[in-house]
């Protein structure tokens, strides 16, 4: 391997890694706040790509039906639970959040779909349409079992992934999509050709990581999320509603998933079930960070991207084997290094 080739591979690895960084950070965010390992995360990324492709073809994306269905179900569940508690006055607000807001996003999409929109606006619309999915799923599936064990939540998340893949097939069909690149620009950095698309992916990863950092350290919402992550019961005693923190975490997480989905849509053909593998590789990255640390998850995800790129050069047939085999030593090291009593306190 010459230095030239190594440099090209490194750039490629960073571009792959940046996608995994976005997904890994989202995974860690949702896990720390709600203790759910959100397996369908990759599916949301794939749905975002499919939604954008539908807008490009001036079709109303299948996401619209999915969001409306989920919104109706979530609103019904929320209304029933509020009525049983006798909290009639909270009802309009809840319906507004779970029914009106998602319906508004769908309505905007339905109105806009026939017009010739500029690309940035289509991206925003696609994001708007995908964003409600995770918070609605949280309300329907995870809120009623919020205090269950991590293992139970994980199993439910896996089941939810399969349900979403089935719904994806129903709403998007079996065809794969690939969108136009956002830019044709390319840069020459130290003799290595870097495409504009790669630069965009890396920039998005940096911007979102920075925004997340600012949110956690300088805003009340961020501090509330952090508090919920550290100690649910303690946070509740301080007047923070874990349910609300959870909804915010899902919203932020699905924003990152959706952005990563939109960024990879021009690079790879995305099918309704493509998300799982992206999520799985990002999960390996997040595990390297112990599923708690954001910088750890980011470094882990970049490492996975790099490893993938160099493994593809050295022995392409075993690329995925190499990436997933990495999980075993990392888990061993993690379980030896961490203090087991820590986890028992939480249970």
């Amino acid at each position, binding site marked *: 391997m010459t230095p030239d080739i190594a440099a090209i591979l490194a750039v490629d690895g960073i571009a*792959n890694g940046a996608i995994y960084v976005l997904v890994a950070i989202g995974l860690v965010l949702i896990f720390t706040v709600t203790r759910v390992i959100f397996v369908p995360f990759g599916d949301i990324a794939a749905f975002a790509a499919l939604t954008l492709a539908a807008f490009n073809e001036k079709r109303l994306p299948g996401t619209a039906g999915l969001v409306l269905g989920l919104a109706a179900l979530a609103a019904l569940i929320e209304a029933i639970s509020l009525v049983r508690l006798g909290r009639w006055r909270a009802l309009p607000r809840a319906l507004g959040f779970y029914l009106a807001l998602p319906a508004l996003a769908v309505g905007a999409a339905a109105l806009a779909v026939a017009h010739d929109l500029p690309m940035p606006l289509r991206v925003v619309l696609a994001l708007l349409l995908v964003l409600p999915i995770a918070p609605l799923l949280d309300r329907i599936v995870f809120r009623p079992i919020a205090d269950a064990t991590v293992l139970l939540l994980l199993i439910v998340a896996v089941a939810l992934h399969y349900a979403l893949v089935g719904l994806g097939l129903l709403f998007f069909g*079996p065809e794969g999509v690939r969108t136009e690149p956002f830019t044709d620009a390319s840069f020459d950095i130290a003799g290595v050709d870097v495409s504009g698309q790669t630069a965009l992916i890396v920039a998005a990863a940096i911007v979102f990581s920075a925004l997340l950092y600012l949110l956690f350290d300088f805003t009340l919402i961020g501090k509330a999320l952090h508090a919920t992550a550290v100690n649910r019961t303690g946070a509740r005693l301080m007047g923070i509603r874990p349910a609300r923190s959870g909804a915010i975490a899902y919203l932020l997480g699905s924003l990152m998933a959706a952005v990563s989905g939109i960024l990879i849509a021009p690079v790879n053909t995305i099918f309704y079930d493509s998300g799982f593998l992206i999520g799985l590789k990002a999960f390996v990255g997040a595990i390297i960070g112990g599923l708690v640390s954001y910088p750890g998850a980011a470094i882990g995800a970049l490492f996975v991207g790099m490893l993938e790129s160099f493994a593809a050069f050295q022995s392409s047939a075993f690329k995925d084997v190499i990436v997933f085999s990495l999980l075993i030593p990392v888990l061993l090291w993690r379980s030896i290094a961490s203090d087991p009593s820590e986890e028992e306190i939480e249970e």
Partner: protein
Amino acid sequence: MALIRAGFIAGVTAAVLAAASLSPARAEYKIGFITSLSGPASTIGIPYSRGIAAAKEYMSEIGGEPINVIQLDDGSDPSAATRDARKLVEEDKVDVLIGTSTAASSNAIAAVADELKVPYLAISPVSPPIADDGLRWVLCVTQPPPLMIKAVTDRIKQDGVKRLGYIGYSDAWGNFVYEGAKAAETAGALAIVANERYARTDMSVVGQVLKVVASHPDGVLDGGSGTQGALPLLGLAERGYKGKLYGTPAIVNADFIRVGGRAVEGILASGGPVLVADQLPDTHYAKKLSLAFRAAHLKANGVASADSFAPYAFDAWLIFADAAARAKAKAAPGAPEFRGALRDALFSVKELAGTQGVYTFTAASGYGTDERSLVLVRLVNGAWQYVP
């Protein structure tokens, strides 16, 4: 009241049954057609269904007796395909089975066909099994996959390529194409200098492409399919590779061209003659039939034929019709004996021209096509061009 109604229904049923048995013994051919109208394989299954509709439009009767087709959806699921096949044979008493989109489901139907002794025309590449009674009940309409690859490797040798790079899927199809290329390797003439693999879900193939380019090939064979088949070729163009490009029928579709753009210009692939029907010389066996197929497809479905799947279903119909006309001399359609007679007649189909090949089925193999079933096509200005 309930009793009266039950009696009434029973009476009507009896009357209908009596009427049915009294009607004159008119022959009618019944095709049981299984395809994937839903599920992941529906990208292939829906074109198959259109192909059958086109065939019914083109030829709706044999010697004045109508051909009826009963179509069932297998949802891309082999166990559903098994159920469908059983239902078609046992309840609907079909004379022949045709289907389906995936090799796994087609193998599942083949097992039922062998057990229930019904001729089955497979339209996915499967290796036709021999049933317990020592007979073959399964015939495969598609070209045998080794032939698809051999057509390309023959051309690679003819083009004088000495160093061939290979990049393909890290799955069964990728292996299959690689083995085909390996079989063509000859000392001193053709050497495979790179064997790189990628997964269908990969976002980048930069590493693999670099390795291929580093091996300095004169030609590169693409063992991918559809849009993802374009991925390594885009990478090669980016690295300034200027050599020859080769592909298999798996890349011959519209999405491949859309995604590949300039990078895939000039690629040479093998495919069925129907693909370039209008460019074939007038003397070519597939020309007239393929054009008739396209017209029937448009008329029956309202859309022009743009895929290479519908013609297989169309050809299966032609093969059945050819054999059924002869089998009718021995037994009446619908009778169990007709299935045996049809099986014998299918294996005496000789030099029957279709849109995808000239079919001659022999008891030695369940495949019916030969070298004439594949033509070479080159991508020029975003359209496939016939290469004589």
